[in-house]
């Protein structure tokens, strides 16, 4: 780890971290053979859960839709090889919340029979932007940078805004992860093709492909392909190798020098950011009719015998992937899904590779944190915070449970990059504290909204009851009044009738 950097023109703070990437990038991407079993979580995206549409015992084909999304925000799941559905049950997965999630388990038959696809898919240029978006929705494509936001919905939101730039994110700033690097080296043509499709779908005329300056091979490959393609709308941009320059908002700021407003999206400043892996997946789906069935992932760390990048089918278990990479070394201690800064440590290697898994990291020891000491308010954390928050102040309020102040100090804008943790001389787990505080604030907001609704309903009910009572009182008063007025006459009438009757008798 190096000292905090102040030499950036446009991005505040950040850190130059030791990359640890060369071990995995020495060799080209290796294709993982079809595993014996595939475990496909039915929800691999942000948003509403998908619903399984296959039954246990059913034979499924490669590329067949097995779970579809019915909500407004979701992505379908496809079978990544042919075989038989043997179970739909909770299975350990790597997620922030909860350890088990419903998964469809497929026993592969090894034949890899693909479902009959469209003959000769229409060229994307002949499709209208709307048709293209609908088609992307069906491909089960989500943001492969790690956020797994359904791509189609992101694009649909984006077309409603005034856009200027498409930015392809090839900035892999987190240590150890190199899947986008090798992807750009070997699939440069697909990346550029994806960019063209996206530009057509969004009717954009400018595209930046942002790559970190420490990826010369990827830059060379992209450059060669661009020279061949001769599309002058696409421009390659080099960004400095500083963590976390690959964060969506940070990248927008680096590339365009526009700051995404708090609580806003890059579309607010006319930018749409997509990961290079997502662009490749879109190309594969639109041009080659291949839904999102596999992804490139990095298997690395000093706990793996042969660190490498593999292209594995979605649903392959981490155990299978690590075995392919030569298995664990004797020193393997900790398994992390994702990078060392933002990843999640898991306790079992039965978890499957999902659309979000960009790295499988096996370390010989947990990154040493040291004993937590009191905050000395040195301000190092504020110097490295890429969004210019004041972590020491936020920590102060987090200790005091002062949610209001934390909100005022911009807690919701924290991207949980972990820079403040790394520089803290007192080893305070700031990011973890902020994450808990965020969850608590969210909970309180829900509670507050609920109380507000209850209050409104209570008041509405009281008003209604009062109205009813008033109407009843008014009616009663009217009847009494009427009786009083017509009373004497009516009595006289009745008496008269009685008199007549008696007379008749």
């Amino acid at each position, binding site marked *: 780890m190096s000292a905090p950097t102040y030499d950036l023109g446009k991005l505040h703070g950040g850190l130059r971290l030791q990359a640890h990437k060369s071990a995995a990038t020495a060799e080209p991407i290796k294709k993982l053979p079809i595993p014996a079993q595939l475990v496909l979580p039915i929800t691999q995206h942000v948003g509403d859960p998908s619903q399984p549409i296959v039954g246990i015992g059913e034979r499924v084909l490669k590329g067949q839709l097995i779970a579809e999304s019915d909500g407004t925000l979701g992505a379908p799941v496809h079978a990544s090889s042919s075989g038989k559905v043997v179970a739909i049950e909770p299975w350990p997965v790597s997620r922030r919340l909860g350890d088990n999630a419903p998964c469809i388990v497929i026993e592969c038959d090894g034949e890899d029979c693909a479902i009959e696809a469209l003959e000769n898919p229409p060229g994307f240029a002949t499709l209208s932007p709307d048709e293209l978006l609908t088609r992307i929705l069906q491909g089960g494509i989500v943001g492969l940078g790690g956020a797994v936001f359904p791509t189609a919905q992101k694009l649909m939101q984006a077309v409603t805004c005034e856009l200027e730039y498409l930015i392809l994110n090839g900035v892999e700033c987190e240590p150890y992860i190199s899947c986008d690097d090798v992807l750009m080296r070997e699939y440069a043509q697909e990346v550029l093709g994806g960019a063209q499709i996206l530009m057509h779908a969004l009717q954009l005329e400018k595209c930046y492909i942002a790559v970190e300056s420490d990826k010369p091979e990827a830059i060379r490959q992209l450059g060669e392909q661009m020279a061949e393609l001769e599309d002058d709308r696409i421009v390659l941009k080099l960004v400095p190798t500083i963590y976390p320059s690959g964060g969506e908002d940070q990248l927008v700021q680096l590339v365009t020098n526009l700051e995404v407003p708090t609580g806003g999206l890059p579309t607010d400043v006319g930018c749409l950011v997509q990961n290079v892996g997502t662009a490749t997946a879109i190309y594969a789906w639109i041009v080659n009719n291949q839904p999102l069935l596999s992804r490139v992932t990095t298997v690395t760390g000093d706990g793996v015998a042969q660190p490498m990048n593999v292209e594995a089918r979605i649903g392959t278990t981490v155990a299978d992937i690590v075995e392919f990479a030569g298995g664990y070394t004797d020193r393997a201690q900790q398994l992390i899904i994702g990078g060392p800064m933002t990843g999640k440590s898991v306790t079992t290697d039965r978890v499957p590779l999902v659309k979000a898994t960009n790295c499988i990291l096996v370390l010989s020891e947990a990154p040493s944190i040291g004993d937590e000491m009191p905050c000395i308010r040195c301000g190092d954390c504020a110097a490295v915070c890429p969004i210019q928050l004041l972590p020491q102040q936020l920590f102060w309020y987090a200790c005091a449970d002062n949610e209001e102040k934390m909100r005022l100090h911009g807690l919701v804008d924290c991207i949980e990059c972990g820079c403040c943790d790394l520089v803290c001389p007192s080893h305070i787990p700031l990011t973890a504290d902020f994450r808990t505080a965020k969850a608590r604030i969210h909970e309180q907001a829900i509670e507050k909204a609920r*109380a*507000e609704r*209850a*209050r409104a*309903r*209570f*008041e509405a*009910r*009281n008003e209604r009851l009062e109205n009813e009572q008033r109407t009843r009182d008014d009616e009663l008063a009217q009847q009494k009044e009427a009786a009083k007025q017509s009373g004497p006459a009516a009595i006289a009438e009745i008496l008269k009738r009685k008199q007549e009757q008696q007379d008749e008798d």
Partner: protein
Amino acid sequence: MTAVVTIAIIALLTGLALSYAKRSLPAKASSLIEQVNKLLPQTQCAQCGYPGCRPYAAAIVDQDIGINLCPPGGDETMRRLAALLGRETSPLAEQAIEPMIAVIDESRCIGCTHCRNACPVDAIVGAHQLMHTIIEAECTGCELCIAPCPVDCISLRSVA
């Protein structure tokens, strides 16, 4: 010497003016009641002895009633009220209760509408001689529907 006397006189006059203003001008009580009401959990359960959260808020502000009478709000609410009103914190009069929601055993419901009429937030749907049910999203777990039920088919369950 003159300076000291002048300052003393100014201070005296200002003090008198302020104390007069404090006594004669009415404080903005209604807005304070609203603030207190905002801190209360809005279950409308009447366990404080007042028919709803706003009446309790009014009682706290106008009649100096204790701030420790709200079991659904628990310690947290009491502490927030203490901070807002500048009062001493005090232990809760009754034990705090977990957030709950009511559930109607629909097979036993006889459709008497008693619970529906008791619900302070209109979270029960049903008609005379027809099965009743609770709108879960709107139920505050106030327990007011439990006592009126002639067949005891309503129970509370924890939200979690």
